[in-house]
């Protein structure tokens, strides 16, 4: 399916040939790189450092997929996408997987023809206000000016919430988190609304975080997860089970520190053995090497490690696990068994 179009010296060097419809796995292997769509920059979830290396929670998922498929977490190209361009980039085959804090909704799954492979962060839309306002509930916000990040589900949720509660508001749509933060801090809006994780991350970087409160209302469900194109189930399986492996690894106590040891010396827990490829042939079924999960876990650690490293309580962002704890700890992280 490779189609090369020669357009002179200018274009040929950077021409990327790919196939939109057929086996993504083969394309990725042939290319030797995974193309991963990320945010252009969101604290904790995806941002480049001074050397141009990308880091973050969403980025970690992509790196795990790259490690599982290609054996190398750095065999990856990051394609920064905006709220507008992300779906086209995925649909056109420019990226293989989109990990850009994207909410799993019916219309995106069905109408836009994508496959969400799971949830890596359970989020919900919340409100942040300065403490000095003395507001304790979102229902007291009649007439307030609300900063929203545009191009997302947030503005729809917001319109619905205020309509249902029959209160008026003044929406201020803003393109990036950084600008929203600037307006909010200067008092150009009373309220900042976005996903609760984003609120926490933003609040954490303020000079005085204690002067701001996140209101108790969570007005929407925002299951954020990686997604792939509709129609390539094999590829969807790979991404889905890589994510599942990260989550299951935490549940089973496999970390990036002990995964080598566990893989070298099979334990007496058959599920661990099956996942790490020392027993059975799960890797083969996916079309991957037997140690795919080992590589994925080693890339950045299991789900819990990723969480702690980029957005957990010891980071400036300081998110609690909450809904994102393992089901054994009362959270929603519950993956199907590896068998």
């Amino acid at each position, binding site marked *: *399916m490779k*189609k*090369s*179009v*020669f*357009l*002179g*010296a*200018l*274009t*040929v*060097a*950077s*021409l*990327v*040939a*790919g*196939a*939109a*419809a057929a086996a993504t796995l083969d394309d990725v292997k042939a290319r030797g790189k995974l193309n991963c769509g990320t*945010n*252009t*920059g*969101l*604290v*904790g979830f*995806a*941002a*480049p*450092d*001074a*050397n*141009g290396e990308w880091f973050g929670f969403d980025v970690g998922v992509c790196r795990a997929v790259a490690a599982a498929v290609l054996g190398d977490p750095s065999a990856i*190209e*990051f*394609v*920064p*996408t*905006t709220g*507008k*361009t992300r779906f*086209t*980039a995925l649909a*056109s*085959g*420019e990226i293989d997987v989109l990990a850009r804090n994207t909410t799993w909704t019916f219309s995106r799954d069905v109408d836009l023809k994508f496959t969400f492979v799971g949830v890596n962060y359970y989020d919900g839309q919340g409100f942040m206000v300065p403490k000095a306002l003395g507001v304790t509930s979102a229902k007291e916000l009649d007439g307030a000016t609300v900063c929203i990040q545009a191009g997302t589900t947030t503005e729809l949720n917001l319109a619905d919430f205020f309509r249902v509660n029959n209160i008026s508001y003044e929406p201020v749509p803003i*393109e*990036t*988190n*950084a600008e929203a*933060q*600037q307006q909010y801090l200067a008092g150009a809006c009373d309220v900042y609304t976005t996903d609760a994780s984003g609120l926490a991350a933003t609040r*954490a*970087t303020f*000079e005085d975080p204690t002067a701001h409160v996140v209101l108790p209302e969570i007005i929407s469900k925002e299951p954020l997860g990686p997604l792939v194109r509709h129609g390539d189930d094999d590829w969807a399986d790979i991404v889905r089970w890589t994510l599942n492996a990260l989550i299951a690894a935490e549940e089973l106590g496999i970390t990036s520190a002990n995964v080598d040891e566990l893989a070298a010396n099979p334990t007496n827990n058959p599920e661990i053995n099956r996942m790490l490829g020392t027993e059975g042939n799960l890797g083969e079924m996916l079309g991957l090497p037997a140690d795919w999960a080992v590589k994925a876990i080693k890339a950045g650690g299991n789900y819990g490690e990723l969480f702690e490293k980029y957005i957990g309580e010891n*980071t*400036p*962002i300081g998110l609690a696990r909450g809904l994102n704890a393992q089901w054994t700890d009362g959270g929603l992280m519950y993956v199907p068994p590896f068998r």
Partner: protein
Amino acid sequence: MSDLSYVRKEMLSQQAAPSTSVGVIGWMRENLFSSWLNGLLSLVALYLVYSVLSAILPWVFHSSWTANSLQECRQQISTAYGPDAHGACWAVIRERYLQLIFGFYPSELYWRPILAFGLALLALAPVLFTGLPRKMLQGSLAAPFLVPWLLWGGSFWIPVSAALGFVLGYVAFRVVSSLAGSLLGLIAAVAAAVIWWLTLASAWVGVMDGVIPLGIEAISSRNFGGFMLSITIGLVAITVSLPIGVMLALGRQSNLIIVRAICVGFIEFIRGVPLITLLFVASVLLNYFLPPGTDFDIILRVIIMVTIFASAYMAEVVRGGLAALPKGQYEAADALGLDYWKAQRLIIMPQALKISIPVIVSTFIGVFKDTTLVSIIGLLDPLGLSNAIRANAAWNGVVWELYGFIAFMFFVFCFSMSRYSMYLERKLRTEHR
């Protein structure tokens, strides 16, 4: 007569001008306070300058260059200049200036874009400065092939094969036009070149790579960013748009109705829509328009759309140049019995393009400034990168320093170019009279 004592015999030495009309005071009286209205205007202007500078300068100089995060910056500034001081956190520029300039290009290969842009300048020099020897122009022909090769890397045979296409086309033109006339020759030339590029070239590159592997590390265009991206887009767009623009301008002036209609339609359509909608096309639609399975990366798509955009403007610039030529030039060319293409090539175009160079330079400035729009579709040009940098927890909240730096860089680039175009305009004016 000499005894008339009341007649002065020698000239009085010239008196010094009154102190109010020479030196600093005289200059000020003449230029600042020539009337009470002017005086008032001067005072207002002085106050304006003072208030702007007094707001900006302390901020610029009460700064920190060494910190590693915004918090550290604030601490350093408050310990050095007192707790109320607001200073610039230039440390973010110190840490990220290479990224703002080169994007994600591998740092050990920075010499390549520098060399490439140097080469491009060198190639442009004989076009821009008429004092240089004309022979250098032949060297300029190699630049369009070498510059992209240096930027994107890959096999050396790729630019060679692209150049070969032109050589082939030229040979075909010479052979066929001597046999069957210039029109068929032109068609044959285009056909030969296109066939070479579309079918044979990639195979040839493969063969040559097998025989003599000669190449440098390939860099995918996703690694382009910062000012390098802006310059690349601007440079490629202007270079490629010039020939397209000339053809469009000729088409628009032509008396073939259908050709003219197509050209006018294209030019007016592109000029009638904002660049941002064309960039939307590049980011979300262009893949729909191409055969299923083709996949240019986004930067290439953007370059294509910006080139199309620039071509329409270039066509109008060239048309302006054509219109500025006295009619006598066309009539003289006809009188000499030159056919259409010869007249264009030998008489009309050299003059029209020469008149248009200042406007071409300002079009380039415009396109270069407009490259900032790509940040809206998520490319990491300087503005896009500034957002990405702020997404780093250490620099969250840095605004003015980044914008200031970017604005300063753009100003330096554009200002020097506009000075150049003014110099050119002055020069052309004297040459004409």
